[in-house]
């Protein structure tokens, strides 16, 4: 364009311009025009990211994370505007650039990776053409651009780049799409890389591959990296520094390890306390939700915006907004009562230090899977407590018995000959990646799905496959909590009407008020329609409704996956409380291993329609376990590539009509056996079954690689330096 002269200044290292290298944000404020005047979404935010450094931004939904990330690329929606402050990247004042200069700066120095990779690609254009187009923008000839594409795709470790380039986005998997988007970010040498929830919505194992890739590229390109995420664990592992955003203001900011293990702001501490750790059981610790919700942008806030939700707040907090205060080296907190928060590590399994071995403060408070035995010891006695007493009340055997259940969609078998048993008062967690058949299995149990072979017994009585053929008693006994809070309540009815309806048809003896109160719903919400409720409140109504008729089994299909961590904690706690007081059994489905591990007594792991492992939660998570379970645990715990642990590096094997379904991806595959013969179901300790050819000694155990391997982990490297 017209900025040939300017281009050198834009692209060159910053020093010449007198600015500091990397990203500098100073006093940045962003507001939106709304029907009720200007709404400030980001309020005086400052931080600095050096080249090669990764900066994490965390906070609940609605706290300004996305707005901040958009402002960095000066790409706000039409009704948004920067109302103050500056953004400097390698000395370039991004907010002062003329439109043409802004474009060439973006082309040369900015790269953004968004959450929904599929959405970031033009659906009507082959991915190769979309990448070539970017090279063309950088002045390459048509032929040269086309030649660069396969090279670029190979850099993001996509197999067979030539064939990938010829595909349309919809012909790629979610992980492949995200790799293409990352490839697009690498066409230049960006000085600022913004990652906005880059792995949300991806399966755990795919997420791990993507993070591994980002990690590798980070050091390669040496850009300032900003990672926006709701996932504290992810930020803790990937970032050098962290900023906690609340109501558009930086509540706390500092080195990742300090902030996430010794938070000085009550909000950070509360966020951390809301997340279940992998291997932590509901019997060990009740999760604490943060009451209320963050202020809506534009809402009038006097004093500390967190004060209404804060356990430590007093009159001072309500009157005056706190100013940033130093709370350690490069660690700043906006709180009047930094001293009131107990100065001890919050028991959260976020950062790598917790895995380096006993002795560090974190490990004392947060027993993690790395320490052999601990989680199992914690879980096992509580399992016995929780499982047996209600079980004794009904001595006739298990509550639910599923035998030989098979469900097909067209020619694909989604659930393949599954056996499942749930005892009275037991919580069975069901995990697996998307498409593994979890939801189909759950719907078959409730009778909502399609019909197919197999028997379902409830208290020994065979249930018809379709809910329409089940008798009133059976229907009362099996209820469900659905995934999407928005779709699970009829938007036309009030909460009271919804609950009253459920009480009538399930012949419950309670009242809507009582049901609502038991689910932690304020009485004044009863006369609202679902549209006025938050996601968490909606799920509480859904849970209240499921318990209207005193059910024996409640099927929970990803009930918290659409919720913020702070809200998720409250819903999980409610589910745990209702289970404890009513003795109801759960079939609890989640893709989140930590959540399943938290709530479940026993865990079943599903892969491609089969249950590959089932047993007590602690044993399944800790091992020895199925190689697939091992990969899930590894992906969930260690989000960075570990030597030999990256499933993406396993040479793809054959997966035929017979043989183990996981054989093609299994790092411990025995060629000639796993890919041809169905694996046996073997018993590994009491009530623990594994479908695998490997002998007990060969099964993976503990946390493979993650705990012991030398990972390129920033937090861990810094662990050596004194805190």
């Amino acid at each position: 364009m017209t900025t040939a002269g300017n281009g050198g200044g834009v692209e060159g290292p910053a020093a010449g311009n007198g600015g500091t290298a990397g990203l500098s944000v100073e006093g940045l404020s962003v507001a939106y025009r709304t029907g009720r005047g200007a709404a400030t979404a980001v309020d005086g935010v400052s931080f600095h990211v050096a080249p090669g450094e990764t900066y994490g931004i965390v906070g609940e939904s609605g706290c300004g994370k996305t707005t901040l990330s958009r402002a960095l690329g000066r790409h706000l929606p039409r009704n948004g505007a920067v109302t103050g402050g500056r953004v400097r990247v390698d000395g370039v004042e991004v907010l002062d650039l003329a439109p043409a200069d802004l474009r060439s700066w973006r082309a040369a120095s900015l790269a953004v990776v968004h959450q929904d990779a599929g959405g970031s690609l033009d659906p009507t254009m082959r991915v190769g053409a979309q990448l070539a187009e970017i090279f063309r923008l950088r002045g390459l000839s048509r032929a040269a651009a086309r030649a660069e594409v396969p090279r670029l795709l190979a850099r993001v470790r996509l197999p067979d780049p030539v064939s990938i380039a010829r595909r349309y986005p919809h012909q790629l998997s979610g992980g492949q799409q995200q790799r293409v988007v990352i490839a697009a970010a690498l066409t230049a040498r960006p000085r600022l890389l913004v990652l906005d929830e880059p792995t949300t919505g991806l399966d755990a194992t795919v997420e791990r591959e993507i993070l591994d890739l980002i990690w590798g590229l980070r050091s390669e390109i040496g850009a300032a990296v900003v990672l926006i995420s709701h996932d504290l664990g992810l930020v803790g592992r990937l970032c050098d520094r962290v900023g906690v955003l609340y109501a558009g203001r930086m509540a706390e900011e500092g080195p990742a390890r300090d902030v996430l293990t010794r938070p000085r702001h009550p909000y950070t501490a509360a966020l951390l306390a809301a997340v279940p750790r992998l291997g932590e059981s509901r019997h060990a610790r009740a999760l604490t939700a943060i009451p209320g919700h963050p202020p809506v942008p534009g809402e009038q806030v006097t004093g500390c915006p967190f004060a209404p939700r804060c356990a430590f707040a007093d009159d001072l907090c309500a009157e005056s907004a706190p100013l940033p205060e130093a709370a350690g080296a490069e660690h700043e907190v906006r709180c009047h009562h930094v001293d009131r928060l107990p100065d001890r590590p919050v028991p959260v399994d976020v950062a790598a230090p917790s895995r380096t071995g006993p002795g560090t403060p974190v490990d004392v408070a947060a027993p993690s899977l790395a320490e052999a035995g601990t989680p199992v010891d914690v879980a096992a006695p509580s399992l016995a407590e929780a499982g047996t007493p209600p079980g004794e009340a009904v001595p006739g055997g298990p509550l639910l018995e599923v035998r030989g259940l098979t469900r097909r969609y067209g020619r694909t078998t989604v659930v393949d000959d599954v056996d499942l048993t749930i005892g009275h008062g037991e919580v069975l967690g069901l995990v697996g990646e998307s498409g593994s058949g979890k939801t189909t299995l759950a719907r078959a149990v409730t009778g909502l799905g399609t019909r197919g072979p197999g028997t379902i017994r409830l208290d020994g009585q065979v249930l018809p496959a379709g809910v329409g053929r089940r008798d009133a008693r059976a229907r009362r006994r099996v209820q469900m909590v659905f995934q999407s809070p928005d779709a699970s309540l009829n938007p036309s009815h009030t909460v009271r009407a919804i609950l009253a309806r459920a009480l009538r048809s399930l012949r419950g003896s309670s009242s809507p008020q009582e049901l609502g109160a038991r689910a932690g719903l304020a009485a004044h919400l009863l006369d609202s329609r679902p549209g006025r409720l938050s996601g968490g409140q909606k799920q509480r109504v859904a849970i209240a409704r499921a318990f209207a008729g005193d059910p024996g089994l409640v099927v929970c299909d990803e009930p918290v996956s659409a919720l913020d961590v702070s809200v998720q904690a409250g819903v999980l706690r409610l589910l745990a409380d209702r289970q404890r007081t009513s003795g109801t059994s759960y079939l609890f489905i989640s893709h989140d291993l930590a959540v399943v591990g938290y709530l479940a007594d026993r865990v079943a792991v599903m892969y491609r329609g089969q249950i590959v492992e089932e047993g007590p939660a602690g044993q399944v998570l800790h091992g020895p376990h199925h190689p697939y379970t091992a990969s899930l645990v590894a992906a969930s715990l260690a989000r960075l590539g570990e030597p030999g642990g990256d499933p993406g590096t396993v040479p793809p094997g054959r997966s035929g009509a017979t043989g183990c379904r996981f054989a093609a991806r299994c790092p411990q595959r025995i060629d000639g056996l796993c890919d041809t013969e169905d694996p046996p179901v073997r018993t590994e300790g009491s009530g623990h079954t594994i479908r695998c050819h490997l002998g007990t000694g060969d099964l993976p155990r503990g946390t493979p690689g993650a705990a012991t391997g030398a990972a390129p982990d920033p937090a861990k490297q810094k662990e050596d330096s004194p805190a």
Partner: protein
Amino acid sequence: MSAATVLAPRRATRPRVPVALAAGTAIVAAWVVVALFWPHLAPYDPELQDPLHRFAAPGAGHWLGTDQFGRDTFSRMLAGARPVLLVAPPATALAVVAGTLVGLVAGSRGGLADEIVMRVLDALVVFPAIIAAVLFVALAGRSVTVLVLVIAGSFVPIVARSVRAATLVERERSYVEAARLRGEPSWSLMVREIFPNVVTTVLVEATSRFGDAIFAAATLSFLGLGQPPGSPDWGASVSDNRLWLQLAPWTVLAPALAIASLVVGVALAADSLRGRWEAS
């Protein structure tokens, strides 16, 4: 879900100027008043012939001139509002009621019944409505009842299809599944759970079809399939007077602009109502 959905600033909803709604409603209301009370409003008897003043240009005596028989164009224009408004509302109501019923039942039942009903409706939609109208008016003769039935009949598949589509969306939502889990009977699913959430679709259909019904009634009468020739009906007037287009364009323009103003009024009001309903 994540930050994006909550924080992504609500796009400034298109400020649907209440002007459009007010103007549209005013136009429609005015024509309704005219249709009801034209005998009190018209300066002349619309059928009164005045051989001395044939093809009189618009002026003081006849505001919009006269036609080939010397009849007052303005009075005929006022009188012409009644036939259209006698046909369009009942035709719309009939089409919406029948279409909603068919769409709701087919959509919430599903299965073979739904498949059969939809195949039939698909075939009917493909069948050109104008041909059907021509056939049936020719078949049953001209009368208000026939017009209402023909117009309603050609709209039923359209209404049924969109109500069914909305029903299918709702049927898959988990609140309906929750009701099925509780063993609610199918009529209760349909009436209590699904229907309240497709009301918006029904209302949108009603406003759209009302405009289309006026359109269809006017066109059929222009084609000579509506009111008998010589009636002050707008479509028929345009058709009758187009022979004298060169000589007395006002005789054609007056009813034409009357039709245009009514349909535009309906369209403006309907569009702003749709915007409001769909936003809520």
